């Protein structure tokens, strides 16, 4: 059956009806960018970065949350993508999560050769995998589950 709801307004995932908002910001991002929560309860969290510990803490926050909540993530793309992946794993749906991404910033690149993830600080077309030192060409394929772009061995097709 088709849903009868209208899509949320662009740039603001907080369509009417939610019962609370969890606002998570990373790095130097201030919370000013967070949309108006329309008088609903708001729970603010700030972290320097999306580390393993940070993500574990978020997981426990999501684990004690109830259906009806919305999530706003603000900060560098690497951090908010990592947090969004945890949110999805905990059962939050894409339409319940708003990403406020800083325009520029480092991104994660996934290496399918050694299965590790490298931070691509310069966001260029190639990056050296920190796991296996392969030069990775960075594709547009983005995994929401990993929060990372797919890389592959650059120049692999050229004669050795």
């Amino acid at each position, binding site marked *: *059956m*088709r*849903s*009868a*709801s209208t899509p949320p307004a662009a740039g603001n995932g907080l*369509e009417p*009806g*939610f*019962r*609370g908002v969890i606002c998570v910001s990373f790095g130097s991002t201030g919370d000013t960018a967070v949309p108006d929560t329309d008088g609903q309860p708001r729970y603010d969290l700030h972290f320097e970065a999306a580390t393993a510990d940070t993500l574990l803490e978020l997981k426990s926050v*999501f*684990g004690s*949350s*109830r*259906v*009806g*909540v*919305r999530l706003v993530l603000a900060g560098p793309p690497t951090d908010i993508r990592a947090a969004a992946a945890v949110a999805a794993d*905990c*059962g*939050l*749906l894409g*339409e*319940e999560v708003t990403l406020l991404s800083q325009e520029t910033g480092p991104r994660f690149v996934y290496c399918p050769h050694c299965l590790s993830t490298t931070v691509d600080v310069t966001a260029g077309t190639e990056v050296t995998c920190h796991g296996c030192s392969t030069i990775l060409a960075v594709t547009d394929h983005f995994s929401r589950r990993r929060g990372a772009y797919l890389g592959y061995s650059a120049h692999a097709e050229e004669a050795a």
Partner: protein
Amino acid sequence: MTAIALQPQVHPAVEGGLHLEVTDISRQTESIVSITFAAPEGGRLPSYVPGSHLVVQYGSGVNAYSLTGSGNAPSDYTISVLRVDEGAGGSVAMHRLSVGDRVNVSRPRSAFAPASTASHHLLVAAGIGITPILSHARAAVERGNTASMIYVHRPDAGAHVAEARKLLGPGLTALIECTNRGSFQSVLAEALITQPLGTHLYVCGPVVFMDAVLEEARSQGWSSARLHSEAFGAAELDAGEPFTVHLARSGVRLEVPAGVSLLDTLETAGKTIPNMCRKGICGECVLPVLRGAPQHRDLYLSDQEKAENTTMMCCVSRSNDPELELDL
């Protein structure tokens, strides 16, 4: 009643389906009977997705009924039918079936599937709406998922109550029965604000009931993607006004009498229209409209699509204008 007398001709909605034998009839309540079908030669029937339905032919008509099993490798199919005396006759015919009768049925069709990413299923049923909900509960138990159920029924008139209670355990964690409106309101209100984040809601019952539950859920912040409803218990549509349809490409004019669907009319005229549910739910029988305002009676098109009047579901929709022109 002989099989031949019951099945004069294979209805298009069950073509390519199965020919099954009634193997068991059991009375659930005064007005609800469970009917079990199996292959006459025995053996396994096609598996189905929880919440699926079966289209069953009666005489020259067909009706869709929810399957109540989990769907995993079944050797029989069971439906439960509420007798509606003022209906089109399907439920009365079903209630007349006896063990040994043969019927034409479709293969199971899925239109109310569980969300694969859900970590918990909140199941809400009213009356005969228990049938697909029971299927969901059984599947959750078999597959190691969890579900909780709210079941609204009249006092001492709940179908499948004993079977639902038997499922209680690590899979079906709660079964709350409500026999009056007030208790249901408070049970639902409590349930809607206490579900963990991975929960999806499934509701089946009268249209008014479903609308109320979905509305309440939305007002408590449930996004549409979490809400699932089974619409084929939709109220019987009225016969409608007669109208004319002009098939622009074929250059044919056909009269659609009151009480006969546009789809039936087109099929009688030799047109082959892809279709599935014939209830305005699946969207298979969509037709392009060139001129005229269709009277949209389906549950498939969005409000915007209906307002555009460029497409229509010919199984249930009719015409507001005396004549419709179709690109056919």
